[in-house]
């Protein structure tokens, strides 16, 4: 049992990890088709996992409806939405479930374009207010760092709108310099650390040193 739960996953992680690295350097068609095959397996696993995901979603919301938890009506809406979209997907604009999904007409597409897309856009637009409130908190110049941040942010914001250029030609230039030099330097510093972190994490997993993803860690 321990072999199935610990050793076998470690062997698979080692083999697949090593293959993943090697095919990056080997252009031979055998290596490339092996990589393609592995990505196909990934898609098949994802398809089965989607069924698990739907089950989990339904179970979660059914529990809320059954217990009549706060906001249970929203959970009920999940079932309504799921059923309606499922029926429309089966209907497939009159082409039935055994044909490719019609992508530009029909009730499924209409619902997506007129319910899902505006709802997404609404959530995205809320971000503007959240940015304003977060910026207000951050830009209170209580420390020297916050003061530098405040001044830099003002220069960048003014430099990016037409009024910045009207006030002075140097504001857009300064804004551009802030983005291209200090900002880019910090960004690249983070990226270098991230890249090395990815190498280290990958090695830890490939060589079975990091076992947290199996749950628990060392035994």
């Amino acid at each position: 049992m321990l072999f199935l739960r610990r050793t076998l996953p470690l062997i698979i992680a080692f083999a697949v990890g090593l293959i993943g690295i090697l095919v990056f350097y080997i252009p031979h068609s055998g290596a490339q088709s092996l990589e393609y095959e592995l990505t196909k397996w990934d898609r098949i696993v994802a398809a089965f996992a989607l069924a698990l995901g739907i089950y989990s979603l339904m179970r979660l919301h059914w529990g809320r409806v059954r217990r009549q938890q706060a906001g249970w009506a929203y959970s009920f809406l999940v079932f309504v939405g799921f059923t309606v979209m499922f029926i429309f997907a089966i209907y497939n604009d009159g082409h039935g479930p055994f044909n490719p999904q019609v992508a530009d007409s029909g009730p499924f597409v209409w619902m997506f374009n007129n319910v899902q897309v505006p709802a997404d856009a609404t959530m995205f637009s809320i971000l503007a207010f959240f940015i304003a409130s977060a910026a207000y908190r951050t830009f209170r110049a209580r420390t020297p760092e916050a003061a530098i941040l405040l001044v830099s942010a003002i220069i960048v914001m003014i430099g990016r709108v037409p009024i910045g250029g009207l006030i002075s030609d140097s504001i857009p230039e300064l804004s551009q310099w802030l983005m291209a030099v200090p900002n880019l330097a910090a960004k690249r510093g983070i990226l270098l650390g991230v890249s090395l972190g990815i190498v280290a994490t990958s090695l830890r997993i490939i060589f079975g040193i990091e076992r947290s993803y199996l749950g628990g860690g060392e035994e």
Partner: protein
Amino acid sequence: MRYFLCCITLVLYTAQVHAQQPTGVKAEDTPNDSGGNITVTWDYPKPYEGVEQIKYTIVVGESENGPFHGTKFSAANLQSSDPGTFGYGEETFQKLFARVDEYTDPTDPPKRIAIENGKTYYVQVIAHLPSGESFPSATVSAEAYENFFNRTKTNNFVIGTIFSLIILISIFLAQKRELFIRRIAGLEALDEALGRATEMGKPVLFAHGLTSMGTVSTIAAVNVLSRVANRTAEFNTELRVANNDPVVMAVSQEVVKESYLNAGRPDAYSEDSVFMVATEQFSYAAALDGMMVRDRPATNIMMGYFFAESLLLAETGASIGAIQIAGTDSYTQLPFFITTCDYTLMGEELYAASAYLSREPKLLGSLKGQDIGKAALLIVMILGTLLATLGIQTLTHIFTAY
């Protein structure tokens, strides 16, 4: 006299043909590929007025004496435009190249026949002058075959191997002596945050980023989840893990279950604690925001790769007064997390989190290796900047990706 004039004309014509004819033509298998491709190289013509207007075509035949068939290639380029294959030598500015992977089917001209591996093909380069005259080169032959190593990635392979060895040696050495690892405030505060949730009797909410299980940041997030689940199992605190990817959800369920088992609290694990929320970005954000407002978790942990939803989640979390610990390698979202969360793991700290929390020597050793690698990169960068300033590009070329 007539004979003499004929001879002179012939000599002049031959000389002109030789002047316009592509010279130095070579054909060989295209390196670093999976075959089915031939690279043809030839000399850039000697400069004269109108040399830029010469157009080239390449014809391919299966026999040395033809017939030859047209090929399709966009334009002949100088070898200097592909340093990965041809290097950085001066001669790369004097040579043209083109790649051929198919030729016109003589029996059905719109169709194309692909170059086969292991078969000899005969190639001619034809120069077309603006005057309408054409001059074919000498015939050369080549075979395409599959390559076992992409030589353009040699630098990547060598540098990657060196860094990997540094990390592996550090892991080995870490088992022999104690290592100093700098304090990471966000991870030091994790126990405090989980303890607060325990005292308040409220749940801990864990959100992965939006990327799939195939990304290392999600794997790092799952590793952190494992440590968090261990602690919540010990503290007997409710843990809620919201997912947007079914595969990540399935992995997280197993990880949390195993962690509860390892903590000796399998009874405390509930299947409902790791659940699917939504696959769409803003549906996921809306659902999580709703959960935060309704359930008021005492601690929010957001680990992984986030996009625009980061601020929606973190700002809502801040508004309910939850302790928030975030970790991401998405540098575009880092400012939002720093602004709204109590602690933020920046970039590499996310990858270090699992090792830091476990305190296992081998895992800590890999962190040390990372730091040595970073120091080496810093030295290379300083040296590379100095050399590039002096006009020496060797180090820059070594660290260029092809």
